[in-house]
Structure formats: C-alpha cells, structure tokens
C-alpha cells in the first residue's frame, strides 16, 4: 500500500484578505516546511463564490485546494466552519494545520483543536520542522519577554495560529497550478446555534500614529499618568506622536489608539524614543521598521535596551525632564 502523502493545511481566512493577507503568508511558510518533509501544501477554503480565492491560493503556492462552496456559507459561521473542518481533517488526517491569528482564527482554532483532541499553540512568531516532521512552534510566553518552543508530540494534526505579518508571502504567479477539489456541502449539517442577526463593516479609525516620523513611546516605567503625559511635550518638540504599551493603556494613561504592538499599531518611525518599556515581544512586534531606537530604562538588561541603538540607563521620568529642558534650549524654530 502506498504511504499517505504528508500534508500541511492552511485555513483560507479570506474575509481578512484586504486587511492582512495572512493566509498567503502561511501558505508561503507551509511551502518551506513542506519541502523539508516532502509534503504537499493544501489550502482549505469554505464559503461562497470561492473562485477568486482558489485562484489566489494557487498563484501563491498551494499544491492542492479543498473548497466547499455553497450559498448557505455566505457569511462566516464559526460553527459551520468547525463542522466542515473537523470532518475534512478526520477524513484526510493532515499532519499540520496552520490558521491565521485573526479574531476569527483565534476563536476558531482552539475549538477545532479541541474537537480533534490535539494541541494548539497561539501567536507563533516562528515555525520550523524536524526531519521526522515535528513542528517546532515558537511562541511568546511569560508576558512576551521569553520565547517558548512548543511541540505536540503524540497527537495529530499539529496546530498553530500565527499573527498576520509574521511571514512574507510568495509573489503572485498565475502560471502555478494546483489540484482543486470542489467538495459538496455535507448533507447532515445542522443549523448553527449561534445566529448572526446583523453585521456591518466597521468604519476605519481616524487619526493614526502609523506614519509618524518620530515616535515617543512610554511604558509602565513612566510610573504614573502625570509623568506619562509629559511625553506629549517631547513629542510636540520633535514633531512626533506618542505611543504606549498595553499596561499604560490598561491604566488609563493613554487611549487604545496609541497602543503600539501586536494588538495595536505597527509603527515605522525614523527615530523612536522608548521610555520605561521592557521590550516584550507583543510590543516590539509593532516596531519592525524603526530606524534609530533610543531606549531609556533603569534596567540595562531590559530587552528594549538591548534592541536600542542608544541605551540610556536612567530614571525615565527624570531623564525626560532633562531632555525636554535641553531640547528647548537648543531648538531654533
């Protein structure tokens, strides 16, 4: 009997295509991993009017597409998608399932893993594979200052969610081909218990720090709201914007629109000041393209200090006051 071909599945989260293209990014990583273990890359897509996605996933590197196209699947339904994916995975027994860590994916993947009685790691920042096919899932842990290598040794499939932006997609090439399997909607699909009463696309948010040339970010090390808001003055002097870490937003020193990182904005300033920030990966994930980083921290060992071009060992609030005073002396408008 021929050995079953190994297969790496990528869930087709097409609703998010215009926001983050995470499915294409995962296909790209799956292609690299598949090469190591002679597997195929299979994109699974369920919904309605799927031709565009079948085409897109093919052109970006998938070897096989499993598509279930039906009018009853027009809007996303976690329960329907779960039932369909569970059935497909049981029938075909993939080695790996990768899912984008979109809001949908983060709700969907844990439940699918539970149904398949297997493990799942969240928000991976790297995926590697051993020659015998063990998926090494690197995920942030302990508040993001550490990375953990997670493996699912004894259960299959191996499942991971991955944040959008982690991997780079393979450029579009419409000469690529894939085996496309158009599968019928199973007859026994029960009505979902969760009913979608109404939905609308939310308005895009207004002011954004994503394009600021100078960013002044502050973290818990600013100590209190009054100190934190002094960053406004530095930002004003430098013509920049203020960003914050999550504890700062939690404490109400800054609004959610200033959150920088994985759950917030991705910034790409030419100069970044980072005051009293430890450098957890969920925060630094948003700093991908900062050119020149100045970190101020009383702890020289903080990750943010190690990432900086200039690491200032000082009390953040204190140094900020002196910097503002010095700058005011020097700036000639």
């Amino acid at each position, binding site marked *: 009997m021929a050995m079953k071909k190994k297969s790496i599945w990528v869930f087709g989260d097409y609703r*998010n295509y215009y926001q983050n293209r995470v499915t294409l990014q995962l296909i790209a990583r799956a292609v690299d991993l598949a090469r190591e273990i002679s597997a195929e890359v299979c994109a699974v897509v369920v919904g309605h009017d799927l031709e565009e996605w079948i085409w897109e996933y093919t052109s970006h590197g998938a070897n096989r597409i499993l598509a279930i196209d039906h009018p009853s699947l027009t809007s996303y339904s976690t*329960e329907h998608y779960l039932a369909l994916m569970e059935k497909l995975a049981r029938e075909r027994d993939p080695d790996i399932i990768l899912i984008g860590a979109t809001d*949908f994916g*983060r*709700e*969907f*993947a*844990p*439940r699918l893993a*539970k149904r398949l009685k*297997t*493990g*799942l*790691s*969240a928000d991976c920042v790297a995926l590697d594979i051993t020659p015998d096919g063990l998926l090494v899932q690197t995920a942030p*842990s*302990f*508040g*993001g200052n*550490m*990375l*953990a290598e*997670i493996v*699912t040794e004894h259960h299959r499939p191996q499942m991971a969610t991955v944040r959008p932006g982690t991997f780079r997609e393979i450029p579009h090439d419409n000469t690529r081909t894939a085996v496309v399997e158009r599968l019928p909607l199973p007859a026994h699909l029960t009505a979902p218990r*969760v*009913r979608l*009463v109404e*939905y*609308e*696309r*939310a308005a895009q948010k207004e002011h954004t720090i994503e394009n600021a*040339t*100078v960013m002044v970010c502050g973290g818990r090390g600013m100590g209190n709201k009054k100190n934190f808001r002094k960053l406004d003055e530095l930002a004003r002097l*430098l*013509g*920049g914007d203020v960003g914050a870490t999550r504890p700062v937003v*939690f404490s109400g020193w800054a609004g959610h629109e200033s959150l920088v990182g994985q759950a917030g904005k991705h910034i790409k300033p030419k*100069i970044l000041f980072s005051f009293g920030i*430890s450098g*957890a990966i*969920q925060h630094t994930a948003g700093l991908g393209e900062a050119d*020149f980083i100045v970190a101020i921290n009383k702890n020289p060992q*903080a*990750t943010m*200090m*190690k*990432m*900086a*071009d*200039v*690491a*200032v*060992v000082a009390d953040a609030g204190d140094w900020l*006051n*002196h*910097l503002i005073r*010095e*700058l005011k002396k*020097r700036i000639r*408008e």
Partner: protein
Amino acid sequence: MLKIVVCMKQVPMVTELPWDEETGTLRRDLAAGMMNPACKHAMEAALQLREKYGASITAITMGPPAAEEVLREALAMGADRAVLICDAALAGSDTYATSYILARAIQKEIPGCDLVLCGAYTSDSETAQVGPQLAEELKVPSAAYAEHLEISGRTLRVRRLVDNFRETLEMECPALITVSMERYDPRYASFAGLNEAFAKTDLAVVDAKGLGITAVQLEACGSRTRVRRVFVRSAQKRNVVITGAAANAAAEFLDKYQRKISAVIGKSIETKKQAQS
C-alpha cells in the same frame, strides 16, 4: 435566577520575572500575583448583568493555593461565591487540559449554570484559547470578544467587533462568552469590601479527586503540547550605553546625535560649537 460563572486566573504582576540562568526557569514565586486584567472585565460584565436581570455569580479559578487571592478580590468586587481548583497534579496544564478541568468543575460545582464568562486572554500565557475550548467541553454555543450582552428569556444577544466587522449574534443559554477589554471597564474593589472578602467563608477548595476525575481521565485529557525550551530573545543591535547623572546624560546624548535628530525633525538642534565640528 440566572446562574453566572466567571473564570478567572491569577497572573504575575510584572512581566520581567527573574530568570534563573542555571535551571533555565522563571522564578514565578518571586512575583506577586494579581487578577488577570481581562478577567476583571468578565467579572464586570457579570455584575452588570446581575444588576439588570438578577443573578448569582460564582468565580472559579484553577491555580496554586495563592490563587485564592484573586477569588477574594472577586468576592470583594461582588461575586456571591468562589471555587478554587487546586491540585499539584494540575500544575503546568496547557489549555487543552485546563479547559477539561474547568468544564468538569463547572458541571459539578455549579450545575445548571446559564452563562459562563471568560476574559479574552491572560497576560501571562496569553493564548486566548481557554474560553473557546471550554465552550467545546461544555458543548454550549459561544462567542468571543463580546462588547455588550443582553438577555431576554433564554436568549442571549451579543454585540462584538471582530476583524473589523460589527456583529450582533444571538444564542440560547447556556452559553459561554469571552468578554472584550474594550468595554465593561471594571469597578474597583473597595478596601472595606476587600477586608470583608478576606473574612468570608464562601470559598470552596476542590482537587481533581473531589471533582470525580480519575487518574485515567486526567491522563487521557491531559496536556497535548509540551514546552521544549524557553529562551530569551537575542538582541539585535550593538548599542551605545549612556549612564551618569540625568542632566549631563541628556546633554551628552543631544550633542552626540544632534545631526541625526535635526535631519529627521527638520529643525536644527545643533549648538554652534558642535555644528562646526
């Protein structure tokens, strides 16, 4: 009356835990614990539902003995009862195992509950997986990231924002909801309330055996994932370190990088002396 369960977790207060180079483990014991911030929002949602519809609220956590503190805090916020699942055999559980245990505990300790609320995610293990997996274990309909909850009869109506879509969902109780951190800003537990909560006795402690979970079941429903290695991220830049009195250090910094900063901000901060050099 509506029976609500709120799942909470104790997390370390700081993100920079002392790291033991030798054993390669974190000294979690050195950090003070606090209630996971997202769980506070879940508790707030429960309290508001009780104010509107009347309800009994049970806070539940699985954790070490010290996790009792978050339950006391939950009682101080207004929970009616609290359950601590505490068993050395459960330490190190991943979300697969955690959701299994929580489900058994909820079924045994709060039978017939109508609504289970979870935080959206924890600030330490941060998976956001326990809620959805618990819904699977309990076999109830569920929705994540709820921003607003309403109940009429047995029907739960949920508003939420996911992937840039505003959705309104409906489902019948019993159900499980994870609460977004964008709404339901938590109230503070008053000092008097805290004192009172620490005197309260409505806190049950159970272990796996007490929940009727056999060793065989524990094994079968145990963790699926294993952490092979934990490591600190390597630094990316060769950096210049500035120390010394803040006043001098700020001047020194500006002297050194005045060209660069001036060019970026489009204003000159170069002092005369330096400008010529």
